[in-house]
């Protein structure tokens, strides 16, 4: 059993890592009262940005490139939604299409029609000395890539920032009532710009992690709905940082389940496992109705 369980849990953490980056960024964006449905476009931009930058300067530069690509996409979203007052849902949809289209075009432009960047640099898992030799926990939690370890630091930091700092409080105030926050002297648009851009950086890191730490190459449309899944993760995590990180684990498990069941020799069609994360998203969103504590300013979008 353990021979199956450890690879499954290991894959769960590995696939949950990029999801957690995107979802944590979206938590911050949504707590400011804006839903960014264009996260999918941001992630795929991060994938290609990460690939190209890593090709030029190695993995570290790759992650910076992914973050930058996400930042630029998010800036476009913020420009339309905050400055031009365009509808957030439609803008987000356009952002997704833009991301998928631009990355497809650029990828074939840069790498030719045959594609295949075989020499993609990637980062390998690092076993943390001491911790990694713990039974079960060691190989699962402490034999991961740097990006996972960064999350272990980021989650408590972000939770503290949102709950305890002045800007964190201001952000949550805007999400509950934009007008009240404005009346209290909070620079609503400036903080929303910050929240959207942070979501962009995190979405871009999600993409770069996907390419450089998980898949090891780029394919067109490889974000495969992760942006929308991340939005569902935020709902499942009830717009809280720690809850969102745990919800990301659940979805990591849904993606990893195919490895487990294949290894266990189940004769189900593999397309069922391909569909599983999407089915899970639908079912969980339906099941969580009413129990979720959405920021009030999102109410217009969340029905």
């Amino acid at each position, binding site marked *: 059993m353990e021979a199956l369980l450890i690879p499954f849990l290991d894959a769960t953490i590995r696939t949950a890592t990029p999801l957690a980056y995107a979802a944590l960024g979206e938590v911050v964006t949504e707590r400011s009262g804006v839903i960014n449905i264009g996260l999918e476009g941001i992630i795929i931009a991060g994938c290609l940005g990460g690939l190209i930058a890593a090709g030029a300067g190695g993995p570290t530069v790759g992650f910076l490139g992914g973050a930058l690509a996400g930042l630029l996409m998010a800036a476009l979203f913020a420009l339309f939604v905050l400055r031009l007052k365009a509808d957030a849902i439609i803008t987000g949809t356009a952002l997704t299409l833009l991301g998928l289209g631009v990355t497809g075009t650029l990828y074939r432009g840069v790498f030719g029609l045959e594609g295949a960047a075989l020499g993609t640099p990637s980062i390998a898992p690092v076993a943390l000395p001491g911790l990694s030799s713990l039974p079960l926990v060691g190989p699962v939690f402490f034999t991961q890539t740097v990006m996972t370890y960064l999350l272990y630091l980021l989650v408590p930091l972000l939770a503290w920032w949102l709950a305890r700092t002045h800007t964190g409080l201001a952000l949550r105030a805007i999400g509950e009532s934009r007008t009240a926050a404005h009346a209290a002297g909070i620079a609503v648009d400036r903080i929303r710009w910050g929240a959207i851009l942070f979501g962009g950086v995190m979405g871009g890191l999600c993409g770069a992690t996907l390419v450089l730490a998980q898949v090891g190459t780029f394919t067109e449309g490889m974000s495969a709905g992760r942006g929308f899944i991340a939005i569902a993760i935020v709902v499942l995590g009830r717009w809280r940082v720690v809850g969102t990180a745990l919800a990301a684990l659940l979805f990591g498990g849904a993606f990893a389940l195919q490895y487990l069941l294949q290894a266990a020799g189940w004769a189900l069609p593999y397309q069922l496992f391909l569909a599983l994360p999407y089915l899970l998203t639908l079912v969980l969103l339906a099941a969580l109705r*009413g129990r979720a504590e959405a920021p009030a300013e999102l109410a217009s979008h969340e029905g």
Partner: protein
Amino acid sequence: MTEALLALWDGAFGSSYAIWSATLVRSAPLLLLGLGVALAFRAGVLNIGAEGQFLMGAISATAIAQSMGSMGGAVPRIVVIPMMALVGALAGASWAGIAAWVRQRFGVLEVISTIMLNFIALASISWMVRGPLQEPTRIYPQSAEIPGPAQWPFLIPGQRLHLGFVIGLLACGIAWVVLTRTAIGFRIRAVGASRSAATSAGGIAVAGTVLRVFLVSGACAGLAGAAEVGGVTWALYEGISPGYGYTAIAVALLARLHPGWIIVSAIFFGALEAGASAMQRDAGIPSVVVQVIVALVILGVLAGSQRRVIAGAATLGAEARR
């Protein structure tokens, strides 16, 4: 650059073959899909699941065509083709119905549910062409060619323009009359403009109207899928849609959700798709560039209309979505 643009123009309008067998053939699904998206948006339903509804329509139409072909004797064309259209439309409507149901029963935002259903539809088609609907030799991930009577008639000898295009035009015409001249159309527009006003001042059953529009929107997309199998591909395979369902959003927005203008904007995007594949072939420019143009059109329409709502209805404002 000029070489690429020339290739684009030639591929779209450069010859009678380009017009009647490329541009208009690619416009056919966009007519129905764009209309479906526009109707939904008109009622404030953000159905971006046209892609999945299209795929489900294509799967079901293939299945019914194959099973009628294997019934022995020749089931005549006059029976098979309407059955394909009907079954395709029903499949599209059911797929949209799932999103409508989880929206009304559980409050799940349809933007997310329809996208999730798109991915589930993709997984379904992937399974179908390797499982129940795979061709008899079981080598290729695609269905066998649908039998002769299930192949939709061409409109012009020697050209590939098929019956689906006419159905698309008719659908746009009917939708235009219904939206502007009937009580049903008034209800749809009222619900899209303001759900609260439609309920309190208009005495309109909002939930029922929204549900019916969602279903009709899905039926349009499913019908488009049936027409694509019957009129163009004659078989089912995974890449049957080059993202038509997403292009349809741009078709609808560029037409400002007006059924008449859908015809113009569907032909515009059909020409773009046709030209882009010629451009890829002749000038080596990847055809995904169309998706970039689609996104820029949507952003352009958004920037142009600012908060004021597309097509005169407050459809896309937040208030309508409550």
